[in-house]
Structure formats: C-alpha cells, structure tokens
C-alpha cells in the first residue's frame, strides 16, 4: 500500500498528512505544550482513545474514511483543539474518523462525541468525556477529576483511584469496578448501576437512578455507612449491615434500610424510584 506524506510546520505545531491507496487520510498533529495543557477533541463518529504521552507534547493521530470530512487542529498557547469538520451531511459510516490522542498525564482533557467509543486511561488531570450514545471506558486513573455524561451510552470505569468522579447518564448503564475517591457520584434515569469495589478511603459515594437496578458488591472488610431507599421498588441487604443507633429516617422493610460495617468510614447512599437495590458481599 503506497502512501504520500506531506509535512508542515505551523507555529510550533507539526502536521503530517498521508493518504493511503484506499482513500483513507491520516493526519498526525503534534503540539508542544507545558504544564496544565488543555486539550479538546470533538468527533461525532468514530472512536477516540486518550492515553498519556511521555514528552511535553500533545499528539493526535486521525484517520478519515472519506473526503466528506476533514480534521482541523488549532493551538492557542497551552490550549489545543482538534475537531472533525464535516464538509457535507454525513452518516456514521462515511463520517467516521478514528482518533488516537496522547496528552501529558496531567492535562485537562475534554472529548465530545456522538456515537463513537471514547476510551481514556492513565490520566491524572481534569477529564470530561461526553457523548450521546458513545460508550465510555475509563481505566487506571489516579487523583483525577472525571466527569462523564452520556444520554444513553454505557459507561465503564475500572481502577479509578482516589478521584472525584461524576457520572450522569439518562439511559446508559454504569459499571464501576475498583473505583474509589473522596466523591463518587453516579446519577442515571433508567440505566443500571453496578459497583464492585472496597469503597476505600472513607469517601462519599452516591448512586441514584429512577428505574434501573443498583447492585453493589463490597468485601466484608469494607468500612461503610450505608443508606438505601427505593420508593416504589425494593431493597435487599444481603450484606447484613449493623443497624445505626441513630437514623435520620425510619427504615421500611423491603423499601429502605440503613446500617454500617466496620467503622463506617465511607458514606454510601443508594436511591431509586422503581429499581431494585441490592448490597451484597463480593
């Protein structure tokens, strides 16, 4: 497969363009940045993956499938924006652009998508990932601020430690595995919420939805103070928490419970309207 390459230097940025025989256009953007860089990626169709870079550069590799789209990059100081630009009305297939992004680990990153998969790993900065139907996968974050918003795209967080986490999804299921932090908030309308972890660090956890089920699996060594309420659904305390001596509401069998285990370090609030809430041991 032959290809042609054109390199350009634009005010410190390097853009390399190559075209394959199949008509795919690949672009590589390289932007030198300093601490506290801000990176924004806008791409409706196609996957976006974000990983840490080793040097002080933002590196964006894109691959387009048709000539109806192009990718524009722009840098203003420490702020970098790379965006897919649609030259005509396109659909998910011919409008698809694949992004591979590398950023300094502490960069502030924002990714907007419509249906493409968004994945991010090993970052420690302020990260916002949002998309209507995009599936969002995040792994191996530490000390980060993570905001995820989808309309009905599923969300999966794995090994996100000591981070501020805020997930809002109207219809997407949210799965958290080994997620801990000072604040971990998940709010869905009909998406299921599933948590597997130890709630380490004594943080503040709140999982709420309207109609999805909430399933929490924690080890017997977890130190947690839990309240669970389902207005029209049901709750099940399969963990067998000890009852609190002083409660702010009167528990109702099958509809709500409150209790603690070990020293009650972390606060866990579970609330649903019609969903079933279950807390059990791993």
């Amino acid at each position: 497969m032959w290809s042609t390459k054109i390199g350009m230097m634009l005010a410190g940025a390097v853009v390399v363009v190559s075209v394959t025989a199949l008509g795919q256009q690949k672009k590589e953007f390289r932007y030198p940045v300093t601490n506290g860089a801000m990176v924004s990626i806008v791409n409706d169709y196609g996957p976006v993956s974000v990983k840490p870079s080793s040097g002080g550069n933002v590196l964006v590799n894109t691959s387009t499938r048709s000539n109806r789209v192009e990718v524009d990059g722009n840098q203003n100081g420490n702020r970098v924006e790379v965006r897919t630009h649609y030259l005509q009305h396109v659909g998910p297939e011919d409008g698809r652009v694949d992004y591979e992004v590398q950023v300094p680990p502490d960069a502030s990153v924002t990714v907007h998508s419509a249906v493409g998969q968004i994945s991010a790993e090993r970052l420690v900065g302020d990260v916002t990932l949002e998309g209507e139907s995009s599936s969002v996968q995040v792994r191996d974050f530490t000390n980060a601020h993570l905001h995820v918003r989808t309309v009905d795209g599923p969300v999966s967080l794995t090994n996100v430690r000591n981070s501020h986490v805020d997930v809002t999804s109207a219809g997407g299921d949210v799965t958290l595995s080994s997620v801990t932090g000072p604040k971990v908030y998940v709010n869905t309308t009909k998406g299921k919420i599933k948590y597997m972890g130890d709630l380490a660090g004594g943080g503040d956890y709140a999982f709420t939805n309207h109609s999805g089920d909430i399933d929490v699996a924690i080890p017997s060594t977890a130190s947690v103070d839990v309240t669970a309420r389902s207005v029209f659904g049901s709750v099940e305390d399969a963990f067998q928490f000890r009852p609190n001596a002083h409660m702010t509401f009167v528990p109702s069998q099958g509809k709500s419970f409150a209790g603690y285990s070990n020293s009650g370090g972390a606060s866990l609030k579970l609330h649903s309207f019609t969903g079933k809430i279950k807390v059990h041991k791993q």
Partner: protein
Amino acid sequence: MTCAEFQKVLPDVVDRGGDAAQDAHLRSCPACSELLADLRLIAQQARQLLPTHDPHPRVWENIRATLEEEGLIRSAPVRMHHLIPFSHAAVPWLATAAAIALLVFGAVLFRRDFSEDRLAVARVSSSPASSRTQELTASNQQGGNEEEQLIRQIAAEHPTLRDTYENSLKQVDAYISDAQRTVEQNPYDEEARQSLIRAYDQKAMIYQMGLSRSME
C-alpha cells in the same frame, strides 16, 4: 374580593385584622388564609428577635460617618440618635415596625411568585371535577413544546440522534414527575427534594448537550 385585591391590603390585615369582606375572602380562600397565617407568625417571631435595649450612641455615630463617607447623606453633622424621637421607648417599636415591614414585604414578594400556582392549586383542588393531573399537564405542555423544538433541531442536523434524545427526554420527564409527586407527598423529606434536583440535573444535561449539538 379577589386574591389580588386581598394581597394589596395584606400588610394592613397582618397588623390590624381584616374587615368583613376580607374575612369572607379568607374563609373561602385557603391559599390567602395560609399566607396570612405565615406572615403573622413571621411578624410575631420578629418581635422576639429584637434587642430590648438601645444601642450605644457610638453605633449611631459610626453609621452617620459611614453614610457621609459614601455620600449618601450630606447634612451637617448631627448625632444620628437625635434624628430619632427623644423617647427611647419609641425606638424598639419603630425597629419592630421596620423589621415587620421588611419581612412582610419580602414575604409578599416571595409569595407573589408562587401565588399564581398556589391559587391554581386551590382552584383545582376545590373543584370536584378537576384533578392534579390537569395542572401538571398544563405546566408540562410548555416544557413539552420546548422539547419538541429541541428534538426537531437535533433531527434536522443529526437525524441519527433523534430517537436517542426523544426517548431519553420521555424517561427523564417520568423521573421528574415521580420525583415531584414524592416531594408533594413528603415536603420535609430531604432525600425526596434531592431526588427532584437530580431528576432536573438529568434534564439539564440532555438540554445542554442537545443545544450544544444543535449549534454546531
């Protein structure tokens, strides 16, 4: 007498009681009756909060100096407390009247924002043929029109996303409806109020994403 006419004379009714027409209105209007009861309670509580002794003259001096510095008064230096009737016994009453007037004014302004809804609720609940659903339907209609507009806008630019937004908005509206009902049934339940806020957060998120999308 209508509620609007009654509320115009509300401060007088709080202080001195109502005449025959005002009393008759109170007997027939639970919203105004409740409002009057709340304001009387506020006024009664305000009296108990006021100090029982006069402030030191230095306090008035400081106030006067500050007002002159800011150019709010230009009179010749006059001790502030001389502007007040010599009878120190009158000061607590004046302060009481001022505090009550401020509280009543603030309460009336606050209530006025909700009085239309409360009157609508009173009318709805007092009518044997009406239902709470009618009021919710009326208020939801306006929101529904905005939602239709948003969905149309998104469908025009991104047809593949239309169903996503449309279905999600329906689900979120059901969430809000359930949350509102729970708050009405349990107005002092903090968790119920938080649920309503979270439901609206969901809707706000969808609107924000949709508007951003439609402006691209």
